[in-house]
């Protein structure tokens, strides 16, 4: 039987992995170019490097079988690779115990009271380190170094970006850290092989994964039951003192100012 509604109150995910990857791709997008020279050595064109989100194996599969169709002239040309290009791949996830927070902390959304009179809240997040692998495939080593040198200066060794991981919450700072750069160092090629250059950059990302986002109601009314002892006894005096304090606390005042029903204090005598 098809399930068409949320399976339980605890079901939910926030697409955080996708957003973190998308944020990284967006950071690279429009930043990475390579120069093209004419036969006199002068730059005649800048190439915007295409970005993929895929595993390295899949990345190869795509470019090896790519067929380029130029719709404008209806010419179809089959090529092997179209270079240069960059692929980003999520290669691993590990729990990061150094950033652990108490389990029962509850975080309230920055949007405050939303339309239905509730406040968005989530339980304490779980810290993870996400491993990103960035692969650079080029035809010349010159292109390869051009691309690496445009990425590396941003990471010292970390680069933080604010990403809206949860709606109704403040954007959260996500830290991308450059771990290593491995330029292509293959030197064993058959004489008939063409050489392509594949460099790899490894990053880790500090990510917090959140439990299902929930809505909690706002407190508009509070009933405080006091156990009143006999008048003149020690207990009576103490409780009376608390009652006086409770009548002056600010929530009562703020709710009255908003025109909502004031907080009621009822006394039950036993």
């Amino acid at each position, binding site marked *: 039987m098809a399930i068409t509604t949320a399976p339980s109150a605890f079901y939910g995910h926030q697409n955080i992995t996708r957003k973190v990857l998308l944020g990284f791709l967006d950071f690279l997008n429009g930043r990475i170019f390579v120069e093209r020279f004419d036969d006199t050595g002068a730059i005649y064109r800048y*190439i915007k490097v*295409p970005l993929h989100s895929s595993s390295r194996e899949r990345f190869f599969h795509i470019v090896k079988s790519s067929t*380029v169709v130029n719709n404008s*002239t209806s010419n*179809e040309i089959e*090529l*092997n690779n*179209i270079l240069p290009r960059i692929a980003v791949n999520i290669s691993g996830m590990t729990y990061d115990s150094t950033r652990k927070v108490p389990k029962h902390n509850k975080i309230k959304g920055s949007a405050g009271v939303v339309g239905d009179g509730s406040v968005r809240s989530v339980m304490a997040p779980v810290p993870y380190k996400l491993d990103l692998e960035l692969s650079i495939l080029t035809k010349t*080593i*010159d292109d390869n170094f051009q691309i690496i040198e445009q990425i590396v200066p941003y990471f010292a060794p970390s680069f933080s970006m604010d990403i809206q991981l949860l709606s109704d919450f403040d954007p959260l700072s996500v830290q991308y850290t450059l771990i290593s750069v491995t330029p292509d160092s293959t030197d064993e090629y058959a004489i008939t092989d063409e050489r392509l250059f594949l460099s790899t950059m490894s990053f880790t990302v500090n990510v917090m994964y959140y439990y299902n986002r929930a809505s909690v109601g706002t407190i508009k009314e509070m009933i405080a039951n006091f156990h009143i002892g006999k008048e003149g006894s020690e207990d009576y005096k103490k409780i009376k003192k608390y009652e006086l304090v409770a009548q002056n606390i600010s929530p009562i005042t703020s709710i009255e100012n908003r025109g909502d029903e004031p907080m009621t204090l009822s006394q039950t005598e036993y």
Partner: protein
Amino acid sequence: MTKPFSFNTDYEGEEFATFLNISDDAIALHGEQLVYIQQTLAQSEPIFGEYLGKVINEGADVILYVEEAHTFSDDMAGMYSKFGFSPNLGEATFHGTIQYFDTFNIVPHAQDLIWWPKTKKIYEVTHVTEEKKQYKLTAELYNYSHDKIADDVTDTEINSLTDINDDEVINYNDEIEQAVDDDEIIPDDDLGDGLF
């Protein structure tokens, strides 16, 4: 017993010339119509030794013998491999005599291109073997890296290569940009002009 054909085998040059002429005729009969494109390599970059300023020039119409060209699809390649064949996708070997290339003033070398109009494929020569006055050109499907195309190139297919970068950027980078806009995940003032 009389031989059907007889050559003057006393003179080595004569014999060889006959052999080459027969080769030329055989290639003209069984070869494929191709466009041989030489690239202007200019001066190499001194440290890495790469020809960064390569320019693709107008090609010459030639007929070369295609020894083998594997054009099976991925599925077919997997199937054939079970039977002992190992088709390598995107590889081809071309043959032509030196005297034939001389008529076009072409000395083939690695990085030249071969445009095969019938299959709509561009191959790049990866190695040239000279054997018995013939060139054997080992070629792979072209890895296009946005090299400059000379202004006088009239082949529309070759000229259309210049649009590839724009197509790719529209396909990939613009989709990323669109996804970021749709999800509204990055605040506007996040990175500014790329400074950190």
